[in-house]
Structures are given as C-alpha cells and as structure tokens.
C-alpha cells in the first residue's frame, strides 16, 4: 500500500516543508467527526497536516469540582455524564472506588449483575464506535444498523435501571434495586441475536476496499509511544500490549470467567477496529457465563451503615428507619475513613480511574477522574502530524474520544 505522504511528496516535492506558507484550519468544534465539542487547531500545508493542537476546553464540565459539593451517593449521577456512551461502566467504576475506600464487599449477585451490565455497556460503546468509524469513512448505513443494536441494549438498560442514558444505577455498596425478574431472558434475547449483526458489520466493512484503504497503516502508533503516553484500552491492545484491567487487576468477579484479551500488532486504525470486534465477542462470552452462574441473594451489602435498608423494613422497623435517615441526611451515613484510594476499571475505552481523597466527612475532599479518552487524545498529534487531513478523521473516530470526559 502506498503511503499517502510519500505520494504527496512525489506530486509536490516541497509541500510538506516550511517553505510553503501553511494555512491554519479548525477541525471542530462543530465538525461531524469530532463526536462532541472538540476543536483541533491545524496547520495545513495543502492537504498535509503540519501541526495539530487539540483543544479540549469547549466542553468544560466541572465534574471534579461538582464532586466536592455532593455526597458519595450523589456523585453517581455525575459519573453518568462523564462518558455518555457507556454510563453504566462509569457508575460501576465510581462505586467500586468508594467501596475500596470503605472496605465494603458487594454480595455475589450484585457483582455478577454488575459484570453483566458492564459488559453490555462495553458492547453498546464498541458497536457505536465501530458504526461511527464506518460513518466517518462514508459507510452511513452500517452506522444506522449499529444504532438499532444500541437501542435494543438501551431497552435492557431501561428495564433494569429505569433510564436509557442517565442510568445512575449503582450506589455505594451495591445497586439501588434488584434487576427485574425477566432480566436473564432480556439479556439472552439480545445476546443470541447479536453475533449475526456483528457478522453483518464485518461483512460490510472488514473486506471493503474503501474501508481498508482508509484504515490500514493509518495512524499507526508504536508500542513504545502507546505506553509512554499512557494509552489504554483497544488502542493500546491494537499496539500489541495485552493490558486489560480485568486481567491485570481483577475486580468484581472477573476471575470466575473464561475470556481472553484480543491483541493486534499493527497499531493502526484497522487494528483498533479488529480489536473492538473481537472484544465484543469476548464480552458476549462473559455475559453468557455470568448468566449461567447468576446467583440468588441480595444485590447490595447488608451493612446498613452503608446501604439503604429495604423499603418494607423502613416502613415497619424503627431501627431500619433510623439507618435510612442517617444514610441520607448530610453529615451521617456514608462516611469513609480518612484516606485516599485509586481504583480503576476497564471500560470500553480503557482504564477508567477514580482517585478519591476522603477527609472523614460525608463529602469527598477531592475526586479525580482518569478518563481513558484523554490519554488517547494526547497521541492524536503524534498520529496525524505529517499525514493527510482526511486521515485525521479516521484516526479520531478510531480513538473514540468522548468529549464529555476530557475537560472535567
């Protein structure tokens, strides 16, 4: 395959040199490929990007500051909004960090249900990512089909959490309510039909010459650079590093399941696409196993110093009513000991970390989010400088940058 830069140099020998006056060009903040409000200041020589400067402040959200004014359970609703493609994974990541800080153990059923929902969220995120990758390269219909799949997943999320997007599902020590009775059937119904859809997407994209020409060799990131820049998730695994938090620092009950980490060695856009496809198949495997083993029992810890007692108890039992009051009223309830914790989970984009400092009150002293997309966006200039402008779009959609979590 011909390297586009070499081609350009052949046509116009000095086009990439500073002799030619460069032009500054804005990619975003209102560009369809930025998938959010994200701006790139580009210096272009003809069609070649000489300099790329990402600017993330267009979607400043202030999540970390908001976290200093809300108690631990209330921050869950903010974690929804950080990654709007897989809010469930964010809920789980935050709740887990607090549980580690407070040393609370979630019962097995809670852990299994969390794993199932986290994997479904991963599928929802990856399928949209793959679809949008197709859309950015001109395959519009594939994107529409992937959105149908996400809608089906959102129907499951709606039945389980009560909301389609802003799920706010977890609480410290568990989940705010058990899953509905028909939950296994709902998930099985999706999981059984989903592989056929994946096959169709592969059929449409994987061997399509336009897609291959636009992705193979584009945005190749070396293994060393990926590690240096702190990249994680599919982008890192496409560079040949088998780093997955689910394996390297097993959380919840991931040790109970048989799954493997897909890797590729090319590090380019096509490799990321392949890794995402393979990861969805692994996720299906995990969900299937978790459904088979799904235990009975409570979904939240029974320590009512941390979790709310059931409503039936609250209506009848004085002690439960007191616990109920204490957990919700400010200054009582969920109060972690003084200290700090860093906890990370593997979300669809990579390692999502929460660093929480507790000063021994009901409100966190500091919450810092380590969003996976931020670290991937850092490599964007590295991948695009000296390349064609149209490649920038392909690279950006393959990084699956979520603008909401960049500038917290």
């Amino acid at each position, binding site marked *: 395959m011909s390297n586009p830069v070499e081609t350009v140099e052949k046509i116009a020998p000095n086009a990439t040199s500073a002799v030619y006056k460069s032009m500054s060009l804005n990619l975003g903040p209102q560009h369809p490929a930025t998938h959010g409000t994200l701006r790139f200041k580009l210096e272009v020589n003809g069609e070649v990007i000489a300099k790329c400067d990402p600017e993330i402040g267009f979607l400043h959200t202030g999540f970390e500051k908001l976290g200093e004014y*809300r108690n631990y*359970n*209330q921050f869950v*609703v*903010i974690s929804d909004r950080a990654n709007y493609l897989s809010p469930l994974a964010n809920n789980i990541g935050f709740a887990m960090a607090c549980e580690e800080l407070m040393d609370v153990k979630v019962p097995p059923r809670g852990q299994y249900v969390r794993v199932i929902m986290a994997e479904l969220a991963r599928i929802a995120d990856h399928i949209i990512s793959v679809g949008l990758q197709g859309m950015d390269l001109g*395959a519009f*219909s594939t994107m529409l*089909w992937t959105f*149908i799949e996400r*809608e089906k997943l959102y129907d499951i999320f*709606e039945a389980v959490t*009560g*909301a389609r997007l*802003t799920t*706010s599902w977890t609480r410290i020590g568990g989940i705010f*309510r*058990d*899953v*509905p*009775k028909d939950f296994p059937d709902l998930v099985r119904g999706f999981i059984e039909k989903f592989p056929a859809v994946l096959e*169709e997407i592969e*059929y*449409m994209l*994987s*061997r*399509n*010459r*336009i897609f*291959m020409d636009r992705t193979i*060799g584009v945005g*190749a*990131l*070396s293994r060393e*650079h990926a590690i240096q820049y702190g990249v994680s998730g599919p982008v890192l*695994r496409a560079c040949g*590093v*088998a780093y997955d938090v689910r394996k390297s620092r097993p959380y919840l009950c991931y040790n109970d399941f048989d799954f*493997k*980490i*897909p*890797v*590729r*060695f*090319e*590090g380019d856009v*096509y490799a990321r696409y*392949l*890794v995402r*496809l393979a990861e969805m198949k692994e996720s299906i495997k995990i969900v299937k196993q978790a459904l088979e083993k799904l235990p009975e029992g409570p979904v939240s810890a029974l320590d009512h110093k941390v979790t*709310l007692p059931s409503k039936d108890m609250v*209506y009848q039992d004085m002690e439960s*009513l007191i616990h*109920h*009051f204490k957990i*919700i*009223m*400010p200054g009582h309830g969920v109060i972690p000991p003084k200290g700090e914790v860093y906890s990370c989970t593997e979300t669809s984009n990579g390692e999502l970390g929460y660093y929480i400092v507790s000063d021994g009150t009901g409100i966190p002293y500091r919450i810092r989010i380590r969003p996976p997309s931020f670290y991937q966006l850092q490599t964007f200039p*590295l991948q695009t*400088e*000296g390349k064609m402008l149209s490649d920038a779009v392909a690279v950006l959609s393959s990084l699956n940058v979520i603008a909401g979590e960049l500038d917290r």
Partner: protein
Amino acid sequence: MAGGHGHDSHGHAETATATPPIPEGAFLAPGNTEMTWVEKLYLPEIMKGLGNTFTHLFHKTFTVDYDGTQRDDPRKFHIPREGYRGEHYLKKDEAGHVKCVACFMCAAACPAECIHIEAEAVPADWQDRERYPKRFEIDLLRCIYCGMCEEACPVDAIALSTTYNVVADQREAKVYNREKLLHRGEELGISLTKHHYRPDGIPGHVPEKKAGGH
C-alpha cells in the same frame, strides 16, 4: 514533523518483519490486512455491500412513528416499563391528605437540588402526624430524574411515574407545586397506590392508559 516520519517507518518495519509472540492470556484478533485481487477490484465488494443494504429494505422497522398523539399504541409511542424514572407525583393517604410528612429527606437526597419544601404544623383534624408540606415544589427543569427522592422517602409519598414526555411552552409550567404533583397522580390513577416499584414481581403501581393522561 520529521520525527513523526521516523517513528512511523520504524513501526512499520517492526511489524513487517515478524509477528511478535502473543502474550499470555491474549489472542490475536482475527483479521487479514492483505487484500485478494478480487477485493482489489473494488466492484465486487461494492455489489456485495449494496446487495446487503438492499435486503434491509425488507427488515422490520425498528423505529416508532412518533407523533405524540396515540399514546396507547406501541408502534406510535414508546411505552416504558414499570420502574421507569419519569415525572414525579405525590401520593395521598386514605383520608385524601397528602402523604408527605415534610421530613426533607427527598430534598436532602436530591443531587440536583430541585426540591423545595416548606413545612407547617398540620391542621387540628389530622391525627396521624405533626407536619405537612405547606409548599412542595419540584423544579423539573433542574431535575435529572435520578429517582433518589423516591428512594429517600420514608413514607412512600413521592414517586416517579412512567411519564417521560415532559414538554411545556412555559418555564413556569415545569415547576410543579404540591397541587400539581397530587393532580398528576390522580390523572394517572396512581395517587393511592401503596407500593413503590419493586423488581421482584410484587406489583406496584400500574399506569392506567387513558385519554388525556400520558
């Protein structure tokens, strides 16, 4: 820029020579980066794709033809399941009084700070409690529908209905006061229900489908 070129060629050379060993617990994601000559011809692939897209004409339509009027018809209007977190309503007790005892728990639990309550001593003929809300306002424009108020209520007085179609042409119309919240429950026929939603199958409120209410 020159540096970028250097790194790039380095990366290519590395992958071209030999595939490094697969780390433990990992596997090579299936895929082939080489094109066969048929694929390079480009036209067969286009025909394949077009053919596949064409078959989608005959698939069942997934979207609903929303026009906002036929709210009983699932083909026209998405009807959420029980347990959906939509607009709030206040419940009544048997005597027809508001169930709320003005304990401020929902206001304390609300992450969006959208519930405003003013408590007052109950009229003399109310035997069951000491306080009731003189003013109970939910600013639904601030509300994020997280359901924490319902979760926090110790007397089962506030709950979220399945109404998600929350539009109004005035800002003031989306600030619900006590009467409006009670009226919402009556409208939906669920203001007297005893149970909150429970996923374990014990029936809670079942929204009634009737004209006018949504």
